[in-house]
């Protein structure tokens, strides 16, 4: 076992891990931060996306030891300082961009990375960027809308009477 230390959502966190311990296992099992999910074993579904040193990565395809000394941001670190939903999170709720919620942490983290690179993405750019995030519930329609809305762009309102 080797000691690993990283800064997770602004707090220094340490733990003992094996060489084979994945970053997602360190988060979920060692730190009990279960917001980051595992939905596949071929690095495709994106439920495990977190940010390492400001870049989106699949935490199921990175060893915990590779993140030693890194700044890690997870879904648990996405709220505002007062605990209220951040802009992207709020847009996902406002535009019904989630149903079962399982892919949602990865979607939000990918959306955050996209908007950091491209503050006003087009619908097509959003859809392309989400190649590595699979959602089985929403048909992506409202996820795309939520991300557009979070970037301050005009979207159709949700259905009403």
């Amino acid at each position: 076992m080797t000691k690993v230390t990283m800064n997770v959502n602004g707090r220094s966190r340490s733990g003992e891990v094996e060489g084979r311990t994945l970053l997602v296992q360190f988060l979920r099992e060692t730190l009990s931060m279960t917001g980051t999910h595992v939905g596949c074993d071929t690095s495709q579904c994106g439920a495990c996306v977190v940010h390492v040193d400001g870049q989106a990565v699949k935490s199921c395809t990175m060893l915990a030891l590779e993140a030693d000394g890194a700044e890690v941001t997870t879904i648990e670190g996405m709220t505002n300082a007062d605990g209220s939903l951040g802009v992207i999170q709020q847009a996902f709720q406002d535009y019904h961009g989630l149903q079962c919620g399982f892919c949602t942490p990865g979607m939000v983290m990918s959306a955050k990375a996209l908007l950091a690179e491209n503050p006003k993405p087009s619908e097509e750019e959003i859809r392309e960027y989400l190649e590595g995030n699979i959602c089985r519930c929403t048909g992506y329609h409202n996820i795309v809308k939520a991300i557009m809305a979070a970037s301050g762009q005009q979207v159709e309102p949700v259905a009403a009477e």
Partner: protein
Amino acid sequence: MPKDGGIGASTKRREDVRFLTGTGRYTDDINLPGQAYVHFVRSDVAHGRIRSIDPSTAEGMPGVLKVFTSKDFEAAGGIPCGWQITSRDGSVMQEPKHPILAEGVVRHVGDPIAAIVAKSREQARDAAEALEIDIEELPAVMNMREALKDGAPQVHDSLDSNLCFDWGFVEENREAVDTAIREAAHVTTLELVNNRLIANPMEPRVAIGAYDMAADSHTLYTTSQNPHVIRLLMGAFVLNIPEHKLRVVAPDVGGGFGSKIYHYAEEAFCTYAAKVLRRPVKWTSSRSEAFMSDAHGRDHVTKIELALDADHNFTALRTETHANMGAYLSTFAPAVPTWLHGTLMAGNYRTPLVYVNVKAVFTNTVPVDAYRGAGRPEATFQLERVVDKAARELGIDPVELRRKNFITEFPYATPVAVEYDTGDYHATLDKVLEISDWAGFDARLEKSRARGKLRGIGLAHYIEACGIAPSNLVGQLGARAGLFESATVRVNATGGITVMTGSHSHGQGHATTFAQVVADMIGIDASQVEISHGDTANTPMGMGTYGSRSIAVGGSAMVKATEKIIAKARKIAAHMLEASADDIELKDGAFTVAGTDKSLNWGDVTLAAYVPHNYPLDEIEPGLEETAFYDPANFTFPSGAYVCEVEVDPETGKVEVQGFAAADDFGNVINPMIVEGQVQGGLAQGIGQALLEACAYDDDGQLLSASYMDYAMPRAYDFPMFKVDSSCRTPCTHNPLGVKGCGEAGAIGSPPAVVNAVIDALHRAGHEIPHIDMPMTPNRVWSAIHGGAGPDKDGETMEERSVGA
């Protein structure tokens, strides 16, 4: 306009906050003190005899607590099937035992042979590699037609054949249908495959068994759509645990789409092993494991014939289907190709004579069961494809052919034993033509042509039976369970309400919608109502969530319980206001004596129920808590019209969905935002079936599409923005909310719309191609146009699979 929180409002979902902040509680997020981990050793051959299992090396590996084989389950029952079908000849279906761990024979790749429990997940897996298993490989049978031939390999030696049942419906119509088809002015025939799919909820299955020695009671945490059903099936049939000693908890569940209805061996294993080992036992499926252990869906091969008279009235319909059951019967499997399929074969049309024949077949594949829509997508697909083909053969407009044959008067008794209570098929058709801009297609076609692309437009209608359904009826049809739902409404002294429902939410937003209903009935803010579900310890009974039944059946039970609450509260208010209960009106959360300004707030009355100082104790019990069970009088019948518009790249065969419009009639709608979200998700799954998804096996029974590297999951860029409308509403006549259910519609109506659009695109380019099997991959479409070779093994060709009628 409705209030923000009442019926009809697009209230934001309250459950979202925990999902958006990483504080949801899914089964894999639960870890119990001292828990051990199980790894299942699964068959890597499709069919084989287990000569021996030597656990000695594995047992000595670090951390290993026990190696289980079928010998450990000699006292346990098999995984039960919940539905019994009777064949045409009056015999009941063949029903093989489905053991928890294979008993001497493995029957599909993924069939569990042994289970290793260790202190860590990796230790269990390390030991699995040391387990010595000697298997004699046997010939496997994959193709249904082959399976029914004499001399075919037998999936179960204990059965007479690989035929599970041969079902005819309605058997009395058979001769009349044959005659009508023989004498028809025109008959359109089509053979097609409804491709095998894998549900793929993003959360893989998880089970944690725990045993409390002091209380001699068991707890199972599981990713289930219906914890009470698991408690009943596993307790009564598999492990012989009485229900009062077994608690089943299904916390936040990351999608189901049918695949989490069934009772699975892994659940029984963890529950049992926890008692044997005196410590909790946890199993978390990997995605690869899910591909070979979650029930698959669809997999029908059908020949359909539609007869028309000279005026293009439909006169008769005959279908013959082979339905793949896989190697064992999953919980609902026999019901899917029969009662959930045959009863819908009339569709939206007045066809007077219908006959449906279904042969259910065992093969060496993963068991097949209900997947979003379950039987109804299969019925809709064949019907809407053959109607489109008939229009093309007769040279008439597919819109007009449908209109001419629509059912227009309700209630309508179909020739396949169901009665549609309400509907307006012209209305949804008009609506979808409008929102899809059907009339403007030609201009878009020209633009596509200018870019070198083919363009087509396709229409499909659907009818589905939801809200499954009267217990006395389904009992006659072979169901081994009731299909009611229950709810308990618990009003607290200060007026807040907890509703305990047997429905289960795994993405549908019940916590929000159900609260809207109760709040609306009483006239209080929805924040005053909390919905609790998913735990057999706190809900009286529940049959769970599937078949788009939650609001129609579970919601109705909740309405009935709330009505009881209101009736009692009115009596208490009458006493307090010194008036007759008949004169008390409840409006906006206040009880008022009619025609006066004498009034009490909701909270005043609820407080009196629990602080009964001035209270008619001789007439009314204190407290305010009511339970209702609701058993529906009929199915509900949502319907709708879908239009798909595609572009086809003639050089590569790639199909792009350019537009998709859906006009649904769900009756009354509680939360339009959530309803639209359900339709959008269903459309994605239906379009996925039509263009991308296929579960493929090779001839030896190896699963070729065994991960996301080969099973094509739809991505965001596979879709356009959808146009979804649910403004056409003919309320259900027999449930209190007038609701019909919306969960499956999108997946039911969309596949034929997509295929019709592609066939239309090819037709407009001069390629007369009667049909292309789903998924319409680029290779298949290209081959259809150019005649080149199709892809390997993504479903056999129609000729190989033909039902041979």
